[in-house]
């Protein structure tokens, strides 16, 4: 019972941290790309813009196992970051999920900001806002989209198995999460426990989505 609690809390901690850090990194980048600062007549700028967008879109569909593999190779004893000794720790798992969360945050933010950009930014500027104030106003108008980004990213992170299995190692009491525990229990034939863990996972996702949806609806009314 205690172990189930530990596993659940670790899942929340790893995915929650990944989404939080991912938002701090992804939202500003997505905003910049969405504001289309790179749009210009110069062909170099256009090239940069197109390349960046394509990279973001490609990484949004990155298989978590590949992210896990890359992080594993970086953190393994003989890898470049091996001396840090992070392999098979929750930190390694957070880094793995960050690699998949950041592109999602950038991509969804980019399209949310892009959809309100033109009208809202010019309106703000014409009403006397500075460039920075106008960018904040665009972000505020895109807030529904930002929340969507968080919901999507969290959903992807909490249900992810392959990546954290490789970099976390699925060690009992250390790096075992809801998803990796389900894998183990199924292999051991403990289907009752596996189903219980699965239901907990589903319930968690449900509760968090309800909370975010409530915020979203309230935001829409304001």
């Amino acid at each position, binding site marked *: 019972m205690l172990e189930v609690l530990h596993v659940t809390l670790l899942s929340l901690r790893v995915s929650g941290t990944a989404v939080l850090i991912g938002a701090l990194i992804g939202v500003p980048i997505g905003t910049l790309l969405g504001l289309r600062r790179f749009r210009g007549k110069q062909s170099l700028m256009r090239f940069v813009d197109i390349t960046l967008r394509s990279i973001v879109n490609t990484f949004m569909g990155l298989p978590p196992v590949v992210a896990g593999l890359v992080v594993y190779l970086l953190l393994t004893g003989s890898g470049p970051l091996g001396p840090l000794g992070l392999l098979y720790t929750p930190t390694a798992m957070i880094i793995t999920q960050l690699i998949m969360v950041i592109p999602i945050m950038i991509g969804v933010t980019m399209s949310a900001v892009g959809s309100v950009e033109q*009208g*809202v930014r*010019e*309106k*703000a*500027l*014409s*009403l*006397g*806002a*500075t*460039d920075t*104030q106008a960018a904040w*106003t665009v972000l*505020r*108008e895109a807030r529904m989209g930002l929340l969507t980004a968080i919901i999507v990213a969290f959903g992807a992170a909490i249900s992810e198995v392959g990546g954290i299995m490789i970099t976390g190692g699925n060690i009992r009491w250390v790096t075992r999460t809801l998803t990796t525990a389900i894998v183990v229990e199924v292999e051991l034939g403990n289907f009752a426990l596996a189903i219980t863990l699965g239901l907990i996972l589903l319930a968690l996702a449900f509760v968090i989505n309800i909370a975010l949806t409530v915020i979203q609806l309230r935001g*829409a*009314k*304001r």
Partner: protein
Amino acid sequence: MPLIETQRLGKEHSGKQVLKDINLRVQNGEIFVLIGPNGAGKTTLLRILDLLDEPSSGSVLFDKTPVNYSASAKLALRRRIGMVFQQTALFNTSVFNNVAYPLKVRGENGNTAEKKVKETLKMVQLEGFESKNALKLSGGEAQRVALAQALVTEPELLLLDEPTANLDPKAVSIIEEALSRVNRERQTTIVMTTHNMFQAQTLAQKAALLLDGRIEKTGTIQEIFEVPSRHLASFARLENVFSGVSSVVEEGTSLVDIGGGLRLEAAFTKTGEVTIYVSPKDVILSKNPIVSSARNTFKGRIVEVADLGPTVRLKVNAGRVFVVQITKRSFKEMRLNVDSEAFLTFKASSVQAV
């Protein structure tokens, strides 16, 4: 003194010349309308005046000083200008916050700001709308909020892009009244585009006719409308423009058959196909036929009544539909309504060939 001026201004958009050699001079305190068909470059010109776009050639002068396009200079200048876009984008928040926004970005908060917002909302007749969400308003209400946003900072120059297009008559008259009030009381200079020729004639002192990115004609409202050009008649929803066949009765007088059994007497000598225009202000409306020197009198029936505040605009079908403008007072005294019978009277010299 000119407040804003353009000199040989041109604008290119992906290889296409959208504006060519635009020379405008808008004096302090005047209302200036830009008229012209869609795609003539009116919106592009307004965007350049609001410093949202830079001209490709030529220059803009504000207060006789050429505009400097550095970020700080643009900001300082923009804060003296108010702009109302055709497609209104209000912020997803309360009406109050929307109107307070321009003050907030200038660092104005608290009681004075609140007072200014309330006063401005009163000017566009939206008292009591403060806590409503701006995205839940009707088109006319939203446009009035947009106007309040532009007015709340008491700008020296107000730019408006088709501010009353597709709005209900009540919203139109509220907006027109607010515009003429700020122009009168604060001497706010106004540059606006419009398709509504009646609005142009009643509000503005000066006008420019824009065609295909060029200024076709510029001058006082009288100069633009007294002898409407063929161009103007071709795109403007000019009221009382009819085409017909003219035949000369005697030197200086013709009869123009405009269909619907109507033959108008006109003070010109023309034969064949003509397009004529009768200014709505030149038409006298009466319940009974009147005896006067005016050569044209027709009986008709009122088919439409639009309340414009102090005045009432009527459409009268006398075989062809004429638009007539009268004061609300005389409208009430004459006890007119839709379906009432009425007589239209105007002089032969009011029938102009365009």
